[in-house]
C-alpha cells in the first residue's frame, strides 16, 4: 500500500524498535505535531481570542466530539476479541453517557451553550466549516478502512491531551470572563478518562506492532490523526482570525445564539451606559384629538403617561440612560439611582418589544 503520510526516511525506519523506543517515537510525533502547537490554540490559551472566535471554535469542535462515538463504534465493530471490546466500549459510554443529559457530547453542548449558542443550532452542525466536516469524516473513514492496529494507534493523541486540557482550563478561566467552571465541566472529566484510554491503546500498539512495517503504520496513523486535529484549527484560523475568509453557509457571529445573548449583541438589554434611540418606524407624537402623547410603532400604538413622555422626550440618540436619569432627577428633585432603575425597566420593556434600540 502506498503511504500517503510522511514517513521517516532514514535507515532507522527499517529497524524493529523495542516497545519503549516505539513509545518514544510516538510521543515524539505528538511533541512536534499535536495541535497545542497550533497558532489558533496558542491564541485560545493566552486569552487572545474574542468571544465570537471562541464560539466558532466551540461550534466546530462539537462536530468532532459528536462523531467520536461513531468512530469508536466503527473500531469496536472490527474487534473480534470480547476482552478488547469490553475495554473499548467504555469510550462510547463515556461520550454518549448512560442517559440523556450525561456524557461527553452533552458536556460539550453545555460548553457551547455556555458561550451563548442555542443547543439545536449546535446539534444541527449546519454552521460548521466544511474543513471541519471533511477532517472529522476522514478520521471516521480511516478507522473503518485501515487495520485495527492503525485504528487504535490513531487514537493515541490522547497521550498528549491531559497536559493541554489542564492548560486549557486554566488558560481560559484566567483570561475569559465569560467562561465559567460549569461551562468547562467537560474537561474535568476528560482529565481522568483520557489517561486511562491512552494507557490501554499504547499497550496494544506496543504489543501488536511487531514488525518495522507495522510500527511504521502505527506512527503514520498517529501522524494522520494529528493532522485531523491540526487541519480543523487551520480552518478556524483562516475563517475567523486571518484573513477572515468565511465560506458561504458557515456560522457568522450573531446567529444561532439564544435570545438573551443575541439581545446583548444587538438590541435588547439596555444598560446604564447605553445610548437608547427610537429607530425608524417608531415615533413619539402628540395626539390632538385624544389630548395625549402616543408612541407610534409597527402595527401598534402605545398610550403614554406623563412619566413615559418625560423619559421618551429625552431619548434622542445622544444621551445615555444615565444622562436621562440625572436630567430627570434634577427636574423632579429625586434620587438619580431610583429614577434610573425605573427608566431602565421601561426602556428594556420597549426594547423587548423591538421599538427601542441602543
Amino acid at each position, binding site marked *: 500500500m502506498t503511504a500517503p503520510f510522511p514517513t521517516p526516511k532514514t535507515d532507522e525506519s527499517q529497524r524493529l524498535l523495542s516497545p519503549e523506543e516505539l513509545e518514544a517515537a510516538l510521543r515524539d510525533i505528538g511533541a512536534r505535531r499535536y495541535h497545542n502547537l497550533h497558532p489558533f490554540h496558542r491564541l485560545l490559551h493566552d486569552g487572545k481570542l474574542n468571544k465570537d472566535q471562541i464560539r466558532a471554535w466551540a461550534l466546530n469542535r462539537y462536530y468532532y466530539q459528536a462523531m467520536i462515538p461513531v468512530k469508536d463504534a466503527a473500531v469496536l465493530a472490527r474487534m473480534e476479541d470480547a476482552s478488547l471490546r469490553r475495554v473499548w466500549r467504555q469510550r462510547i459510554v463515556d461520550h454518549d453517557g448512560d442517559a440523556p443529559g450525561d456524557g461527553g457530547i452533552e458536556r460539550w453542548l453545555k460548553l457551547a451553550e455556555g458561550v451563548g449558542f*442555542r443547543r439545536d443550532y449546535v446539534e444541527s452542525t449546519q454552521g460548521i466549516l466544511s474543513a471541519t466536516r471533511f477532517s472529522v469524516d476522514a478520521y471516521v473513514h480511516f478507522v473503518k478502512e485501515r487495520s485495527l492496529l492503525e485504528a487504535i494507534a490513531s487514537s493515541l493523541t490522547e497521550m498528549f491531551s491531559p497536559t493541554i486540557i489542564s492548560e486549557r482550563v486554566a488558560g481560559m478561566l484566567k483570561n475569559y470572563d465569560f467562561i465559567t467552571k460549569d461551562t468547562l465541566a467537560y474537561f474535568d472529566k476528560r482529565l481522568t478518562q483520557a489517561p486511562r484510554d491512552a494507557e490501554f491503546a499504547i499497550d496494544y500498539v506496543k504489543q501488536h506492532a511487531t514488525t518495522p512495517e507495522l510500527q511504521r503504520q502505527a506512527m503514520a496513523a498517529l501522524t494522520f490523526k494529528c493532522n485531523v486535529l491540526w487541519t480543523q484549527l487551520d480552518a478556524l484560523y483562516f475563517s475567523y482570525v486571518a484573513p477572515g475568509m468565511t465560506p458561504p453557509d458557515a456560522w457568522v457571529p450573531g446567529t444561532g445564539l*439564544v*435570545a*438573551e445573548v*443575541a*439581545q446583548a449583541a*444587538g*438590541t*435588547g*438589554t439596555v444598560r446604564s451606559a447605553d445610548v437608547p434611540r427610537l*429607530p*425608524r*418606524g*417608531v*415615533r413619539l*407624537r402628540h*395626539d390632538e*384629538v*385624544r389630548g395625549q402623547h*402616543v408612541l*407610534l410603532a*409597527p*402595527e401598534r*400604538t402605545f398610550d403614554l403617561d406623563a412619566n413615559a413622555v418625560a423619559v421618551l422626550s429625552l431619548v434622542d440618540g445622544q444621551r445615555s440612560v444615565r444622562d436621562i436619569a440625572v436630567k430627570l432627577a434634577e427636574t423632579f428633585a429625586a434620587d438619580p439611582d431610583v429614577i434610573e432603575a425605573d427608566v431602565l425597566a421601561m426602556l428594556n420593556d420597549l*426594547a*423587548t*418589544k*423591538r421599538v427601542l434600540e441602543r
Partner: protein
Amino acid sequence: MNAITPNTPSLPAPVGLLAELTHRCPLRCPYCSNPLELDRRSGELDTATWQRVLTEAAGLGVLHVHLSGGEPTARNDIVEITQTCARLGLYSNLITSGVGGALAKLDALYDAGLDHVQLSVQGVDAANAEKIGGLKNAQPQKFAFAERVTQLGLPLTLNSVIHRGNIHEVEGFIDLAVKLGAKRLEVAHTQYYGWAYVNRAALMPDKAQVDQSIRIVEAARERLKGQLVIDLVVPDYYAKYPKACAGGWGRKLMNVTPAGKVLPCHAAETIKHLEFWYVSDHSLADIWANSPAFTAYRGTDWMKEPCRSCDRREKDWGGCRCQALALAGDAAATDPACSLSPLHSKVRELAKEEAAETPPDYVYRTIGSNVDRAAPPPLKEDAPL
C-alpha cells in the same frame, strides 16, 4: 341630524384607516381578504380624493394608515400618497406582496417618509409559496425586496397566512423572519371570509396541526425574545372565544375600498343588507358617526343572546358579523367561532371533516371572472353534516 360626534365617550375616534388603494395584485392567493367582486382600475379613487380622505382621517383622530390593496405599489401615485401621510403625521404602513414594481418604488417610498413595511410571504419553500400565491418567480423577488427594506433601515414585518398548505412550514417562517432581519412576524391562521370562505375545504388544517403550530410559536417567542416579536392569530374555528373583529365593529377601524366605499371591516360587504356610504358623498367624520353600516353593529344594543347578557360582550363584541352571517345565516347572531354559540360544535366538526378530506384545488382570486365554486352554505343547528 345626529348629535353624536367622533371622540365622545360613546363614540371613540377611529385609530386606524385601512386604505385599499387598488384591488390589482400580481398574486392570486386563494385566501385573499378582498371581496369576490373586485373593483376595476377604472373605478379607483384618484390621487386628490385619497389625499382628501387622508386629511379627513388625520382630523378625525386616525393615527395609523395601512396602505393596502391588492398590491398598493401598483398605484402610480403610491409615493405621493405616502408623502401625504408623512405630512399629516399619519403613521404609514405599506402592506405589500413585494413583487412586481414594489422594489423599484421602495427607495422613493423611504424618502417619502414611509414608516413600516409589512411583507406577505405565502410559504417558505419557493415552489410551495409560488403555488399558493399563483405567481412564478415571486419568492426571489420577495427576498430581494426584504433585503432592501432592512438595508434602508425600515422596520420589516413578515406576514404569513397559515393554512393546510403551509402549516408544516411554521418553524420555517420563523427562521425566515430572523434571516431576513424582520422585527415582527405575523403567524396568522386563515380567517374564513371572502376568498378563504370559498376555498375553506382546501385551506382548513386539522386540530393537531394547529396545536403544533401554536406550540412552535410559543417556544420561538421565548427563544427569540427581544429579537423577533411574533404575533399569533389563532384560527377561529378551533378557538374558544371569537376575536373582537377589527377591535369591535365601528370602534377602531375604517376601511376605504378602491372605489371609495367605507366599510367597518374589509369583509363587511358580504353582509348584503348593509348600506355603505362613499367618500365621494360624505365626509369621513360623517360616515364614522352616522353611516348605517357603521351604526348597525356598533356597541352592544344589537346583540341577541347569548351575547347580550355575556360578561365578555365588551371584550370580543360578539365576534365577527360576517362569520355569523356566513355560518349562522344571521349577521346579528353570536359568532359560531364562540364556544357559547349553539352552532359551535358544528363548526368544530365541520373543520375536522374538511381537514380530513383530500383538499380540492385552490380557486385563485381574479378580477372579473366568475367564481366557479359555490361558497359553503350556512350551518343549521339540526343540519346533518
